[in-house]
C-alpha cells in the first residue's frame, strides 16, 4: 500500500493495517469465522421444553464462541503480541515517533488496527452468519445475543490487555506471544478448578471472583438456574448481578489497557 498525504493518525493506521492484515490474513480469518459459525452452532436447547427463548438465544450464541474465540485470539496474539512486540524489538516503532503525534495516538492507531478491525470482523461475520442460520433467534433476542458476546469477549480482551502490557514491558514479540498463550490457557484452567471447588464446597465466593474476570460464568449461571428456588446451587445470580459483573470485568479490561497506555506514553524508554 502506498502512503499518500493525510492526517498522521490515518497514516499510521494505514501502515498498521497493511502490516497486520497482509493478504490473505483477513480473508482466511473471515473464511474460518463463517465456516466455524455453521460448524459449531448447536440448537440442542431449542428442541428442549420448559426453557425460555432468551436461554435458547444465549446457548445458541455461546455454542459458537468456544473454538471461534480462540481463532479470534490467534489473530489478536499475532497483531498485538507478535506485531507490536516485534515493532518495538526491531525499532520500527521509533519511525512512528517522527510523526507529529502523541505516543498515545500512535498506540491508539496500532490498537485500532490490531484489535478494532479483528473485533469488527469477528462480530460482523459471526452475527451475520448466525442471523442466516437462525433469524428467529437473532432478530427478536438481539439484546441477549449482544450481551452473550459482551460477556464472552471480556476475558479474551483482558488477555489482550495483559499481552499488550507484557509486549511493552518485555519489548520482545516472541516472548509476549508465548506468555499470551500461557495466560489464555492458565486462566481457563483456573476457572475450571475454581468452579469445581465452589460446587464441591457450595461456596459462592470463588464463582463471584471468577465472574469478575470471566463474566460469562455469571451470565451462564443466571440463564441456567433462573427460575430455580434459592439454594439450588452455590450461587444463582440475578440478571442485574450478571450485568454488574459484566460492567466490572470491562472496568478491569479498561484498567489493563490504561496501564498499557500509561506505560507506553510515560515510562517506556526507546
Amino acid at each position, binding site marked *: 500500500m*502506498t502512503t499518500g498525504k493525510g492526517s498522521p493518525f490515518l497514516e499510521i493506521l494505514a501502515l498498521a493495517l497493511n502490516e497486520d492484515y497482509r493478504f490473505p490474513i483477513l480473508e*482466511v480469518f473471515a*473464511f474460518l469465522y463463517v465456516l466455524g459459525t455453521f460448524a459449531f452452532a448447536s*440448537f440442542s436447547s*431449542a*428442541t428442549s421444553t420448559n426453557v425460555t427463548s432468551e436461554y435458547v438465544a444465549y446457548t445458541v450464541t455461546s455454542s459458537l464462541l468456544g473454538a471461534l474465540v480462540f481463532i479470534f485470539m490467534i489473530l489478536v496474539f499475532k497483531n498485538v503480541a507478535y506485531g507490536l512486540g516485534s515493532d518495538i524489538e526491531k525499532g520500527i516503532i521509533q519511525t512512528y515517533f517522527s510523526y507529529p503525534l502523541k505516543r498515545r495516538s500512535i498506540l491508539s492507531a496500532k490498537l485500532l488496527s490490531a484489535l478494532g478491525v479483528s473485533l469488527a470482523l469477528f462480530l460482523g461475520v459471526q452475527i451475520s452468519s448466525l442471523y*442466516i442460520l*437462525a433469524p428467529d433467534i437473532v432478530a427478536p433476542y438481539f439484546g441477549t445475543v449482544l450481551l452473550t458476546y459482551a460477556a464472552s469477549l471480556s476475558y479474551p480482551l483482558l488477555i489482550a490487555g495483559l499481552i499488550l502490557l507484557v509486549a511493552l514491558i518485555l519489548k520482545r514479540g516472541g516472548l509476549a506471544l508465548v506468555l499470551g498463550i500461557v495466560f489464555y490457557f492458565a486462566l481457563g484452567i483456573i476457572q475450571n478448578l475454581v468452579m469445581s471447588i465452589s460446587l464441591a464446597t457450595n461456596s459462592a465466593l470463588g464463582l463471584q471472583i471468577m465472574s469478575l474476570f470471566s463474566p460469562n460464568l455469571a451470565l451462564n449461571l443466571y440463564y441456567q438456574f433462573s427460575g430455580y428456588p434459592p439454594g439450588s446451587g452455590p450461587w444463582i445470580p440475578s440478571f442485574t448481578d450478571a450485568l454488574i459483573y459484566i460492567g466490572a470485568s470491562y472496568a478491569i479490561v479498561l484498567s489493563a489497557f490504561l496501564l498499557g497506555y500509561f506505560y507506553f506514553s510515560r515510562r517506556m524508554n526507546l
Partner: protein
Amino acid sequence: MKRWSVILSRVGTTVFAIGLAFFLVSLIPPTPTGDFISSGYVSKTWVTFYEGVLTPQQRLRSTFTANGTVNVYILEVTPRTVYDWISEHHPVPVDYSNVTYFDQYLDSNPTSVAWQDEIRNQTITYEYTPTKTVNITSAVSGHGPDVVSTNYECSLLRSVAPTSKVQVLSEIAISIGIVFTLPWLSKLLRAKKRREDRATTPREESGLR
C-alpha cells in the same frame, strides 16, 4: 495504486472468501439422524403421523403413500395447537378427528401450513427445510367416504446450514467479491505486463545492435 482502491479490493477479497465459505458449507451433504414409519386410515377424518421440533440445521424428508385420494400436509404447529383451536371454537365436545374441523382450522390459520398436496393412489416425497426453529406435524386428511389407507415414512436429516439459502448468499457474495476485486486485479495485471515489457525491450535492443 490509490489507497481507496486497495481498501475496496481487500473488502472484495474478504467478501469473496466469505462467499467461498458459504459455498463450501452448502456442499456438505446432510446426515440422516433418525427414521420414522407409521400408517393410518382416513375417511372424512384427519390423522397426524409425526410431530417434533426442527431447527434450521435439520430437514424432514417425508414420503406419503395412499391407495385413494387424500390431502397431505406439513404443518408448522403441534397437533395440540389444532386440538386447542377446535375446542376453543366449538364449546360443545366434538370429534377432533373430523376433517371439517381440521379444514376450518386450516382456513383460519393458512400460515401454519408449510406444505400441502393432494395424492391420488400414488406416492409423494417432500423434503421440508425450516428457516427457523419450528414445531412440525405431518398430517393426512381424507374428504371422501371411502376408507383410504396411508403409509408414512420420514427421515430426519441434519445439515450444517439451510442449503438453498446459503447457496444464494454464496452466489451473491462471490459476485460482489469479484466485482470489487476486478479493478485491483486488472491494475495488477497491467503492472505485471509493463514490467515484462520493460524487461524484454532492452534485450531486443541489444540483440539488434
